[in-house]
């Protein structure tokens, strides 16, 4: 099946199958692809000490402490959180005979994801709001 035909097929599924599980499937794919691509970037950033020096590594990591990149980080952690919680649901369904409970589990997945999003947002709020006053950081910047 071709690329376009396959995606049209998925679209049809979503319109016909108005089930929360269909959205869980899409979100799991979407977050999975985003995380996999980020993983490559993550490995590259952590190789800066290998490619250049420890100082370069520190300098570039510090340059990431901006409101915009913190918002990006909050979104990324939320994506990882959803993928992980949904992964726990899949493991429970596959290995713990909980397929009859998968709908309830899915509600918990969404709830935990929202709670995680709010918690991380609160944790990173000082940097996002631009009120970060850590003197060590200000000096290094």
């Amino acid at each position, binding site marked *: 099946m071709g690329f376009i035909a396959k995606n049209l097929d998925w679209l049809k599924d979503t319109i016909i199958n108005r089930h929360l599980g269909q959205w869980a499937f899409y979100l799991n794919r979407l977050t999975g692809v985003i995380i996999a691509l980020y993983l490559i970037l993550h*490995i590259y950033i952590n190789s800066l000490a290998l490619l250049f020096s420890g100082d370069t590594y520190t300098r570039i990591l510090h340059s990431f402490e901006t409101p915009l990149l913190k918002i990006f980080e909050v979104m990324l952690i939320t994506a*990882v959180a959803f993928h992980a919680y949904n992964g726990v649901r899949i*493991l429970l369904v596959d290995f713990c005979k909980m397929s009859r409970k998968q709908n309830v589990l899915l509600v918990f997945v969404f709830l935990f994801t929202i709670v995680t999003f709010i918690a991380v947002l609160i944790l990173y709020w000082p940097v996002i709001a631009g009120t970060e006053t850590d003197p060590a*950081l200000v000096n290094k910047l």
Partner: protein
Amino acid sequence: MEVQREKGLRLWFWQRITAIILIFGIALHFAVTHFLGEVLSFDLVNERLQHLLWIVFDFILLIAALIHGFGGLWSIYLDYNPQGTVRRFWGWVAVFFVLILTVYGMLSLIALSPK
């Protein structure tokens, strides 16, 4: 194990094994690298990596993440029913990326851990 004998189930099996490693591993990874409120620096990472256990932990996390990530991309690709040479080609590309990034990641860990 029974599932090991069925080739199509091998990917399913390893996605779940790596998922279990990643659920616990990434929770700990986030806790020590993102949620302590410290700004990451070479010195901070270097101090943590003085302990061999952290290097082993990071390396296991790296391999699990690479297998799970590329295994996931591969399973999406399989949804489009690729056949023959094209399928084998992209399969080897995925294996190549996992191997190269594993070695590259390990070298990066070593570069971050001198005394």
